[in-house]
């Protein structure tokens, strides 16, 4: 279970991008975060595994307080958080298998990492997962030889190799065509069920969000203004979430304060 309390993030001296944000994610569910550009969705996600350093507040993942960890403990904790990226972030010149196994980099010995002699159990799991998402035949191909949809599958398998306790996906389908995008979304939903894995997805496509999620969170200017079942999201609330621009919001809020 992920528990976020009073999270604040400001970049440099600017106005806070996340303002006193509270969020709790339990059990296996697929949760989508929507909100206009600049609302702070990526920032929120990246605060969870501390790719972005939170300014204040607490983030607790199954009892581990993430925000206070030192470098070594942070690495240990990051293994428990899988992440999938919009632009896949694969290492182009490595094979698919090496990319997939890099999800295990935190666990295996340096020697195994250098020589690419991965543990049998890891190889078996990699093939199982690749089989599951339909890329097993590409194990020996270089990552840059794959199509976008295939590359995102590699990205998903890499994250799952970590045996994560939660999966974060920052616009995982934004670089894909509509059909592939649907496939990846349903894959994520099915995996969430199969693996009992909570999944948080940042997404712009509201239709897809409604179709695939168990829960939708709407963000506007660093705050959560909607948090409910997809069915509860109606046109008025959509307007509320997507109205205005961050700079407009900033001025309004400034006037209020």
């Amino acid at each position: 279970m992920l528990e976020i309390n009073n999270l604040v993030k400001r970049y440099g001296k600017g106005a806070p991008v996340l303002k006193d944000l509270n969020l709790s994610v339990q059990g296996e569910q697929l949760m989508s975060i929507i909100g206009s550009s600049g609302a702070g969705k990526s920032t929120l996600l990246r605060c969870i595994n501390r790719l972005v350093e939170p300014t204040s507040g607490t983030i607790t993942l199954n009892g581990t307080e993430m925000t206070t960890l030192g470098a070594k403990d942070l690495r240990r904790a990051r293994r428990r958080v899988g992440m999938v990226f919009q632009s896949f972030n694969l290492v182009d010149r490595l094979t698919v298998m090496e990319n997939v196994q890099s999800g295990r980099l935190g666990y295996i010995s340096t020697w195994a990492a250098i020589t690419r002699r991965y543990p049998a159990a890891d190889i078996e799991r990699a093939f199982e997962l690749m089989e599951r998402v339909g890329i097993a035949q590409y194990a020996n191909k270089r990552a840059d030889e794959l199509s976008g949809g295939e590359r995102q599958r590699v990205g998903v398998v890499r994250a799952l190799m970590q045996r994560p306790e939660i999966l974060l996906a920052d616009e995982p389908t934004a670089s894909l065509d509509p059909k592939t995008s649907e496939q990846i979304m349903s894959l994520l939903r099915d995996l969430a069920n199969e693996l009992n894995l909570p999944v948080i997805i940042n997404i712009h496509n509201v239709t897809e969000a409604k179709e695939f999620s168990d829960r939708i969170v709407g963000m506007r200017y660093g705050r959560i203004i909607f948090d409910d079942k997809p069915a509860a999201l109606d046109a008025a609330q959509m307007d509320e979430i997507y109205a205005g621009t961050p700079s407009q919001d900033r001025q309004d809020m400034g006037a209020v304060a």
Partner: protein
Amino acid sequence: MDWARYTPAQRMKRYGAFFGVALLVTWALGSIDVIWEWVWDAPVQLADLFTRMVPPDPTNLETILWATWETINIATIATMIAVVLSLPVALISAQNTTPNVVCLWIGRFILVSSRSVNTIIWALLFVAIFGPGIIAGIIAIMFRSIGFLGKLLGEAIEEIDHAPVEALQACGASRFRVVLYGIVPQVMPAFFAISILRWDINLRESTVLGLVGAGGIGIILQGAIDTFQWQEVSMVLLTILALVIVGEVIASALRKKLL
């Protein structure tokens, strides 16, 4: 394209530059310490030297070829060692991989001092330390190469795509493994290109090490010149020419094969 017309300001600038160069040349010519009779005599002297060089004399060809082999080895071994040693230097002197500012400055200091001192000057130093011979040559080439390789490799590291690196960090990989999986594969092509380029350069540099006593074919050249064996000199020169051209061919073949 209107190549013939310039604005008056441009024209002034051109005349200014031209005048400046003329002034510099006049200053240099006027104060340089040469005996002008020698200058006018130079073409004759060169022609004379040339006639004494032909035809090349192959009697010592075997010795020459052995020295050539030694030259190749100096260049190759020194390049290999330098490549290995330049890796950590490149890592600590690239902005995005350096552990801290102190390392960054140490790295930059190594690069600058290695690069600014020419191979021959390094060779002078190492001949003074280790005595004449191939070892001094190898170390000299190595010292000069580290700066070259480290600088170019460091620049390649700074230009990599950061996205995969971030993904590996998110997996909880240690710093070393992030470098191993995220950075090394990305700079591999640059790494090979730079190493091959330096090997090619080192082949040329190794031909002159002998002139300061640091081994290779230069020793034979020096010996032949000192004893006025001009036909052997031309033989050595031809061998060097062949060596350099073959080296260039190999380098470009390797480049094609590896990249």
